[in-house]
């Protein structure tokens, strides 16, 4: 008999609810603070709203971690109807507190209902990639044991790779997520950094993947690195690509050029992701990128 599985994910996944074809899913909203006021993603308070505040009011925003009780509340409300909960969590390397909160909830329900916390080693559309990969898995292999599922989820994590172009690293720096990209900060020369979250890197922190002087160069670099990764993994077709965009009008041309380039890749599905409020805190105006599942 197939398991009934409920999926939990934070709202920094680069996808809207409509883009996820799975009913038993709840998206947790990360708290965002602008000054001392807390906001959550909504029709009004979205990525565009925050980017506009960044550009026009020079505000500083911060995000907070997932809240234990909010995770537990989802499980509590659904536990009688489901056999298993899978929580796809953003990289523990980027937010150890969020993963800890998820782990504490798992322990709380240890003898009540099984919970798998998947450390996605990703953020934003990378989390979305892992999430959709797991949903594919659940749909195609409904009879897998918990152990088999755990192992398969790990495989998905290790086959997910994301690249980000963040024109201003200060947003990432202020949010405490700078990781190894710190080396790219403070340059006298104007450089455009290429960052990455590589699923096969255990640390799950943001890596400096390259730097360029023009967006055209950085787009070419991204495409080259995707091809290298495909060769490395002996993959001829990308299972899915989720783009990252939607942080204001900045870099429109560069983003459009990249999206055109993406179309040339052998890929089963390209989803144009949607940036959310919490991502905008860390990525800032004009950010874009792609996450792929191989």
């Amino acid at each position, binding site marked *: 008999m197939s398991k009934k599985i409920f999926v939990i994910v934070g709202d920094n996944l680069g996808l809207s609810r409509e883009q996820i074809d799975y009913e038993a899913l709840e998206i947790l909203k990360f708290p965002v603070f602008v000054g001392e006021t807390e906001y959550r993603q909504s029709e009004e308070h979205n990525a565009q709203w925050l980017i506009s505040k960044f550009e026009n009011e020079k505000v500083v925003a911060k995000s907070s971690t997932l809240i234990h009780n909010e995770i537990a509340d989802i499980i509590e409300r659904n536990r009688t109807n489901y056999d298993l909960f899978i929580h796809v969590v953003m990289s523990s390397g980027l937010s150890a507190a969020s993963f800890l909160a998820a782990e504490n909830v798992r322990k709380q329900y240890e003898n009540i209902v099984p919970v798998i916390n998947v450390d996605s080693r990703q953020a934003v559309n990378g989390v979305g990639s892992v999430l959709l990969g797991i949903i594919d898995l659940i749909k195609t292999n409904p009879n897998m044991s918990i152990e088999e599922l755990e192992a398969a989820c790990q495989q998905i994590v290790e086959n997910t790779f994301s690249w980000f172009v963040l024109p201003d690293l200060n947003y990432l720096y202020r949010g405490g997520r700078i990781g190894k990209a710190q*080396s790219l900060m403070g340059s*006298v*020369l104007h450089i455009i950094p290429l960052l990455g979250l590589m699923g096969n890197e255990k640390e799950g922190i943001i890596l400096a*993947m*390259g*730097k*360029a*002087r*023009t967006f*055209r160069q950085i787009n070419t670099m991204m495409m080259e690195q995707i091809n290298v990764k495909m060769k490395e993994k002996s993959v001829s077709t990308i299972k899915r690509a989720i783009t990252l965009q939607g942080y204001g009008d900045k870099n429109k041309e560069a983003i459009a050029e990249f999206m055109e380039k993406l179309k040339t890749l052998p890929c089963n599905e390209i989803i144009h992701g949607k940036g959310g409020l919490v991502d905008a805190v860390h990525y800032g105006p004009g950010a874009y990128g792609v996450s792929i599942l191989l």
Partner: protein
Amino acid sequence: MNAINSGISEQAAVVFDLETVNEIIENIYHYLNKHKEYLNSLNVFPVPDGDTGLNMVLTLQGAMAHMKINEKNYSHSGEYLEDFAEQMLLNSRGCSGVILSLFAQGFTQITANNDFSKENIYRAIENGDRNAYEGTENPREGTMLTIMKALSEKYAELMSKQDNPFAIIQQTIPYLKEVLNQTPEMLPVLKQAGVVDSGGAGFIVLLEGINNELGQYIDTGIPVPNLLRIGRITRKLLNKRLSELRKSPLAPLILNIDSSRIQNSRLAEALQNVRNMLVNLHVNHNNRNGRSLKRKKIIADLQYLDNSWNPEIKEKFCTEFVLESNAILSKNQLKEKIGHYGDSLIIVNANNKYKVHIHTNKPNDLFEEVSQYGTLLFTKVDDMKKQHRNFISDDEIDYEKDKSVFCIVSGKGFADILQKIGADDILCYGKNKPSVNQLVKGLNDLKAKNIIAASDDGDILMALKYAVTLCKSSVYIVESENPVSLISILMNISKDYDIHTMFEAAMNNVNNIPFCGIARSTRHVLSQGGSPVNKGDYFAVYQKKIVLADKSKERLMTNVVEKISATHTLVTIYKGADAKNDNNLMKQLKNQFPSLDFEEYYGGQPDYLYYLTFD
């Protein structure tokens, strides 16, 4: 400077004390310094970065400064000069400095035995020439190496006609100048610039300096072989009957030999006796017995001198090696095996290691043979790298990081930029190229196990390569030649990867950014297309060729952007240290090329007024 052997020396001894040697070196240095600007002007591109003369001068200066503070005691000038050459190498700057130092190192390795005879100096020149060639990656004709080879060949040719090595060197100079004048035919880049090779010219200037100093020691003495030939003829003559002796046309010739030109005292004495006897023979026809006795003694003396003349003795190299062998069980056993290679054999033995000193003509054959019995740990003649390693074997480095990137750059602005995009340390050298010592210090100060090193000038490459042999870290040199390449390298490497991946990325991207250098001509030259570039004109160098020139800087820059920026979107201008009066330049370019982005930075490079890069 050579020692007199028990037999006849081919040349009278000229012995220099260390003070005199220092004085000679200092005078040679001043002579070179006087010609520095001439050498600097012999540059392929008419930009003020020609520094061959300066590099050679600084190389000598560095070695001199070290020797002044050095408290080591030297037993003779050969030993002193060997150390001086080592210091030249450590203080060498630019390609010209390194090649010159390599020649000096090879030369002084041979004269370290204090033998400055004609033959030994030939071997020294040969070894210096070989050492310089072998130490130069991709040695090319038309350079200083060609002049060194020509010196070796001409010296060999003149050896049969001259005994005094200083006189031979003096006589090679006109020939070397002829060869120098041919260098533009050997290197097209010289021909295009209308200059002779600056390194080669510098080497000749140095030889002239040496000649000025040592010329006073050139005597006009009759060569020893000629004197011995005279001795042999005299012996034959003396064996003849007295009546024949008196009539012989050779007798007046012997009587007229200028005794001041006979510099070997024993030969001079013997020939003086012959003359006295001949005078007596003509003056006094009596006293047959006395004459007969004297004649016999003179013949015996001449015979003895002839027998004691052994030119082969000069063919021997002072050779040292350390052999580690389990096959050889004693000093005597080794002595038996190698004794026939030469003389002055000394063997010191500890456990299975044998330190050997021998004078031999065939050091290479000797090394080949002894290596059959074990491992050669050290050789004195030609293993430069091992000597280098030996030199620093006591150094201890506590590595603090796994990998680092080290950049050598002249402009301060570029230094800042490079530091901010990932270089761990920068050696900013300004106008004077860094010495090997400075480079070694820079590399060692990083305390990194693996280092990627790159410089903004191809002329630093040789010095860097020698610095690497003295550095304990594994150094990966990226052969870059300009500051733009350094930016390209740093833009394309990530320290998140292992050193090999980093190095590969650096190598693949060294020439990734198209760029153009703008400078002002210091003399008349021709551009790539053959059009003249006048002194004072601005010109653009693209892919190492002068592609455009103009009297107006603004017009030139506009033409350059128009010509090169076709497929690019960003033009970056790096201003040089001497870029002035250009406040409107950027504005003008932006107006003329509205579809392009322009960025401006201070590069601080001393040679080019601007570097323009195209992304």
